[in-house]
C-alpha cells in the first residue's frame, strides 16, 4: 500500500462521519471569525435558537473595515454597525474577541500564527479565502462562506469532499532580492490562476525548507490565487522554533509532546500525489503584475505583453480586457510605468520580516514627491515590534505614512482607497478590477519592489536607486 501524504494524515485524524458516496464530516479545531462575513451566520443561529458548540475553539477579531489612521473614528455608520455587531455576538455567544482595544488585534491571518492559535495538524477555517495562509504551519486551513461559518459555529464540523493533492516542488534557491512573494507570483504567472482548483497544494523542496515562517505564510496565503483549496508545508524546526512561547501555544511538556506528534505530519516517501509540478526558483526575477488577476504578471525587467501573442482566444480576450482597464499599451517596459500609490501591508506581506525588508530598501531615501505611500502593519504586535526596532522612524523620515493594523488598502473597505485611474504598487494579493477602489489600477509586488517603487515612482530594483539619485 502506498504511503500517505501529510494532507491524508491530517484529513484522517479529523473525520467524524464517513459514509459511502457522501462528503466526510470533518472536525474543525480552530474557527477564526471577523466582522464582515460573520453577522449573517450569528443571526442564523439566533433565529434557529442554536448555540455555538465550542466557543473555546473559536477566536474573533476586527480587521476588514477598521480605519488605519485612527481605528476609533469609524466614520462609516454601516462599517461601525458591523464592528459593533461582532462585539455583541462575541459577548452573547461567549467567544474570545481581540477588539480594537486589545493588544492582540490585527489581520486575522497575521494574529492566528503570532498568537500561537495556528498550530500544525489543526483544521482551521475562517470566512475568508486567505485562510490558506495557516497551511504554512502544516495545518489544513481553508476559507468558507457564511453558511458554512454558521454550520461550524453550530456543529464544530463541516461536510467536505476530499480534494485532490498537488505537490509543488520549489527547486533551487532564489537570488538575493527575490522574495517569497516573487516566487508565488512567478508560479501563478506560469501555471495560471486556476491550476490549483479542486486540489490541496503541498509546497516542498529546497527553497521551502530554507524559508522563514513569514515567507512560507506568503506562499500559502496566495495558494488561493491559484484556485487551490489550501496550501500546506510540512512542519519542521523552523515551525517549532517560531511557535515556542507564543501566548496560546502549548507550554512546557505539552509543547514537547505536541512537537513529537507534529514531526509525524510529513508526507511518506512512497506517497503518491494526483499531480506534481516542479518549479525552479533560481532563475526568477522580481515580479510585477500588469493585468487584472494575479497570474497576469512578469519580470520587473519585462514588458507589457501583446494580447495577440496568447495561445487561446479566451486568454487573448482576458488580456485585452485587462490592458483596457489597466490603461497599458503592449510593449511598454514594466520599469516605465509611473506609480502614484504604494501600499505595504495585507495578510500576504505585513509581518515583521516584510517590514524589515522594505525598511532596508527605504533607509536613506525619500519617497518620490509624486507618490503617496503607506505602511500598514499586520497587527498590533507587528507594529510594536517594528517600533522597538525603529523601523517606523525609517519609514516616516522617508515620507511614508505609518498606520494602525488592518486589511486597509488590500480591499479598500475602509477609507484607504486608490482613486480611479491611478496606480498602486501593492504588496497585497489581488489585482482584480476595482479591488483597491473603482477604476484603481493595482500592480502586485513584493515589499522590496514596493519600497523601491515608492522612492523611484516606478518599478526598479533596489540596486538602481543609488544610480537614479546620482543622475538626478
Amino acid at each position: 500500500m502506498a504511503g500517505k501524504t501529510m494532507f491524508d494524515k491530517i484529513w484522517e485524524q479529523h473525520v467524524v462521519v464517513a459514509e459511502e458516496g457522501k462528503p466526510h464530516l470533518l472536525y474543525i479545531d480552530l474557527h477564526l471569525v471577523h466582522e464582515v462575513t460573520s453577522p449573517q451566520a450569528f443571526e442564523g443561529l439566533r433565529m434557529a435558537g442554536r448555540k455555538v458548540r465550542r466557543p473555546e475553539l473559536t477566536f474573533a477579531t476586527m480587521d476588514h473595515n477598521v480605519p488605519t489612521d485612527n481605528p476609533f473614528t469609524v466614520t462609516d455608520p454601516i462599517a461601525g454597525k458591523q464592528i459593533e455587531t461582532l462585539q455583541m455576538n462575541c459577548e452573547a455567544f461567549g467567544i474570545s474577541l481581540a477588539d480594537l482595544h486589545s493588544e492582540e488585534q490585527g489581520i486575522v491571518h497575521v494574529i492566528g500564527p503570532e498568537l500561537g492559535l495556528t498550530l500544525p495538524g489543526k483544521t482551521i477555517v475562517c470566512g475568508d479565502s486567505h485562510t490558506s495562509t495557516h497551511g504554512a504551519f502544516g495545518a489544513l486551513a481553508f476559507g468558507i462562506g457564511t453558511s458554512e461559518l454558521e454550520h461550524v459555529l453550530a456543529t464544530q464540523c463541516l461536510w467536505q469532499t476530499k480534494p485532490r493533492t498537488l505537490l509543488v516542488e520549489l527547486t533551487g534557491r532564489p537570488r538575493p532580492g527575490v522574495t517569497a512573494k516573487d516566487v508565488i507570483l512567478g508560479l501563478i504567472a506560469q501555471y495560471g490562476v486556476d491550476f490549483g482548483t479542486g486540489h490541496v497544494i503541498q509546497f516542498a523542496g529546497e527553497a521551502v525548507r530554507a524559508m522563514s515562517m513569514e515567507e512560507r505564510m506568503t506562499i500559502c496565503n496566495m495558494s488561493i490565487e491559484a484556485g487551490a483549496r489550501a496550501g500546506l508545508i510540512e512542519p519542521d524546526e523552523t515551525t517549532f522554533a517560531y511557535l515556542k512561547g507564543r501566548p496560546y501555544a502549548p507550554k512546557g511538556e505539552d509543547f514537547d509532546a505536541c512537537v513529537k506528534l507534529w514531526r509525524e505530519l510529513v508526507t511518506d516517501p512512497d506517497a503518491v500525489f494526483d499531480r506534481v509540478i516542479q518549479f525552479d526558483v533560481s532563475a526568477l526575477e522580481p515580479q510585477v503584475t500588469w493585468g487584472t488577476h494575479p497570474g497576469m504578471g512578469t519580470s520587473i525587467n519585462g514588458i507589457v505583453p501583446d494580447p495577440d501573442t496568447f495561445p487561446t482566444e479566451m486568454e487573448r480576450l482576458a488580456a485585452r480586457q485587462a490592458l483596457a482597464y489597466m490603461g497599458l499599451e503592449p510593449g511598454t517596459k514594466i520599469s516605465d510605468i509611473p506609480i502614484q500609490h504604494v501600499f505595504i501591508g495585507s495578510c500576504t506581506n505585513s509581518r515583521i520580516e516584510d517590514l524589515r525588508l522594505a525598511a532596508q530598501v527605504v533607509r536613506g531615501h525619500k519617497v518620490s514627491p509624486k507618490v503617496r505611500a503607506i505602511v500598514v502593519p499586520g497587527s498590533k504586535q507587528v507594529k510594536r515590534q517594528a517600533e522597538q526596532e525603529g523601523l517606523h522612524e525609517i519609514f516616516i523620515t522617508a515620507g511614508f505614512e505609518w498606520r494602525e493594523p488592518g486589511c486597509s488598502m488590500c480591499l479598500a473597505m475602509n477609507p484607504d482607497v486608490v482613486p480611479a485611474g491611478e496606480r498602486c504598487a501593492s504588496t497585497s494579493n489581488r489585482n482584480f478590477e476595482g479591488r483597491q477602489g473603482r477604476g484603481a489600477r493595482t500592480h502586485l509586488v513584493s515589499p522590496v519592489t514596493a519600497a523601491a517603487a515608492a522612492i523611484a515612482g516606478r518599478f526598479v530594483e533596489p540596486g538602481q536607486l543609488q544610480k537614479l539619485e546620482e543622475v538626478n
Partner: protein
Amino acid sequence: MEVFVRHQGIVAPLDRPNVDTDAIIPKQFLKRVERSGFGQFLFYDWRYLPNGEPDPSFVLNQPRYAGASILLARNNFGCGSSREHAPWALADYGFKVIIAPSFADIFHNNCFKNGMLPIVLPEKDVEHLFQQAGRGQYRLEVDLEAQVVRDDEGTTWRFQVDPYRRERLLKGLDDIGATLLHADRITVYEQSAKKPYQDVYRTTGSVT
C-alpha cells in the same frame, strides 16, 4: 432552503473569463449585516457608470436580457474572495442557474447553500450556448432530477453534479439540521483519544 428541481429561463451571456467575486459584488456593499438586498449591487462597477446611470453596454442592462435567470459564464467563474455575498447577490437579482466551463471551489460550494445550481459544461458546449444566447431571448430548461439542460429546439446537454449536493437541492435540506442528527458521533469524536494534543487547543487562557 429553497427546493430546486427544474428551472426554465432566459440566458444572459457574460463574456469574460475569471470573473471574480469582487466584480460580482464590490466590497463597499459587504457592510450589511443581512443576507438580503444584495441584488441591486450585483456587478455594480460594470452595471453602472461612474455617475450612477446604468451602462447600456453591459449585458444585464440590455432589454433582450431582461428577466434573465440563467447566467452563462466563462472559465473560473467566482474566483477570489470567499464572500457568500456573491451568490446572495446573484440569487437576489433572480439567477437560479449559472453555466460555465469551470468554477472556483469556494464560490461553487456557496451556490449550493443558496438554492442556486452551478452547472459545468465542456468549453465547446458553452461556446455554442454563447452563440445562441448572443441573439437574446434564448431560453433553456434545466432539469436537476434528470441532470439535463434543454433548449427550445430540443438540443440537450447532460451535466454531472455531486449526488449528495443534488439530493440536498432537490429536497431543499437544511445542512445544520442534518448534521445535528450526528451529534452523538461528534461528541464521541470530541471525547476520543484520536488526537492526544487536542486538549491543549484552546483560544482562551492566553498568558499575556
